[in-house]
């Protein structure tokens, strides 16, 4: 009996082949097997024969929406910067998307990075992706040579051991507290829709930190980001970061220094998170790709919480609605403002 993910892989291959053979799309964005256990690599398939390389498993942690704008550009007929747009519809691209990635695609549509009519979303319900780091922590110092995946367990094999662990126990934190595992945008449904997870509180970790004193939070912040090496993997893996010149690369004015000084790395992370405010879907890719295991998702999660609390918006849920920071209402909360002294006096 095939596992759920094996069935999903089969369906992805079949649908991708069909879409390419029909000529509906010019390319399909999915995953191929990685060269190491517990890894996958993003793959853009352009011919029906290559569809056999596509896979789906529990280690699909990179956000595929990140590759969508560039892939769309790559399938357009080549033209110079001043040449007119070719007549007729441009070729389409299909992309495998879970809940959070489909929301990222919605954000890209809202921000005019992607045209809705050029994307075919192959919607896969996410059962939560496994954190490679969590698995490795369980087998400290022992080399993992192969991982076999069942529906609810993982069989971890090394040179001289083979152990079965519970899959959910090593699922990434953001997947465990996910509120929308099923895609919000679906053109081709792959597999069965997954049910909403029972989440007592998606902002548990943020709430716990908020309970602490300011000094403790500052201590957490300096400690957490002290190991950053400024490789910008978090930025590069993020589907929201598409500015041609990032603020960290600006030289005049230079907003953030390029050194490994604690203030420079701190500012980089504050501003990076802030630029994702109202757009981040908590896909967890930034944290997954970080070579130092920095928990930078806490900052974006905090912003997500505030955007939901203050403006009642979750990123990427409605393609027609404006983004929270590109709109306003007359009576937005403004408790954070300095109370007007005269008004305070009158109040007394």
């Amino acid at each position, binding site marked *: 009996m095939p596992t759920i993910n094996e069935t999903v892989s089969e369906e992805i291959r079949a649908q991708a082949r069909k879409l390419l053979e029909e000529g509906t799309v010019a390319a399909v964005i999915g995953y191929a097997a990685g060269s190491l256990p517990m890894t996958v690599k993003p793959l853009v398939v352009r011919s029906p024969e290559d569809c056999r390389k596509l896979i789906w498993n529990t280690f699909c942690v990179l956000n595929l929406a990140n590759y969508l704008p560039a892939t769309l550009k790559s399938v357009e007929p080549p033209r110079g910067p001043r040449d007119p747009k070719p007549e007729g519809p441009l070729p389409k691209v299909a992309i495998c998307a879970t809940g959070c990635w489909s929301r990222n695609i919605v954000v890209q549509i809202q921000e005019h990075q992607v045209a809705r009519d050029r994307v075919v979303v192959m919607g896969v319900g996410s059962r939560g992706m496994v954190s490679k780091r969590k698995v490795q922590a369980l087998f400290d110092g022992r080399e993992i040579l192969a991982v076999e995946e069942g529906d609810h367990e993982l069989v971890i094999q090394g040179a001289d051991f083979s152990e079965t662990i519970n899959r959910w126990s090593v699922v990434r934190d953001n997947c465990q507290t996910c509120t929308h595992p099923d895609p919000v945008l679906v053109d081709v449904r792959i597999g069965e829709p997954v049910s909403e997870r029972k989440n007592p509180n998606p902002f548990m970790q943020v709430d716990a930190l908020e309970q602490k004193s300011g000094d403790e939070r500052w201590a957490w912040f300096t400690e957490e980001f002290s190991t950053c090496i400024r490789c910008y993997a978090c930025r590069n893996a993020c589907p929201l970061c598409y500015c041609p010149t990032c603020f960290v690369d600006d030289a005049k004015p230079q*907003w953030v220094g390029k050194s490994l*000084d604690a203030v420079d790395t701190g500012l980089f992370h504050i501003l990076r998170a802030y630029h994702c405010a109202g757009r981040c879907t908590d896909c967890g890719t930034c944290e997954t790709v970080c070579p130092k295991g920095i928990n930078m998702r806490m900052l974006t999660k905090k912003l997500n919480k*505030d955007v939901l609390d203050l403006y009642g918006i979750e990123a990427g849920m409605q393609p027609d609605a404006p983004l929270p920071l590109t709109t*306003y209402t*007359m009576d937005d909360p403004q408790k954070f*403002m300095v109370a007007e002294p005269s008004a305070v006096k009158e109040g007394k």
Partner: protein
Amino acid sequence: MNDQSTNWEPKIIAFLCNWCSYAGADLAGVSRFQYPSNIRIVRVPCSGRVSENMIMSALKSGADGILVSGCHPGDCHYISGNYFARRRFALLSNLLDFIGIEPGRVSFSWVSASEGEQFAEVVQSVTEKVKALGPASRLVKKIDALETALQVA
């Protein structure tokens, strides 16, 4: 924290919108309202022009306090600049609080062109708050090592 012995005075960077708060500051001066001389004013076209980069950059460069002030909601010269700014500042001020920047380090207010007296009061209250907090140390880039190196050279 507050080092009274050296008569420390805070440096506060004030981003004032050209149409309301800057004019309010002007009115305070013309009307001879007294307010602390700790603020350094940066005139900006609109409170919506003040980006988080500017605020963080000021903190990094050693400002002890930041004040951002614009037109009252509904009075923006550009109709809606301050409404957008309000949303952004709400998130930024919460985020800064979350990472442990002392509340009161970065302040936001609305002051109109006719509110000279209110401007003086806002500056007074912001300065008092920053004085109570003492010199900024968080997110301030220390260049002591660099200075020492330069002196040696």
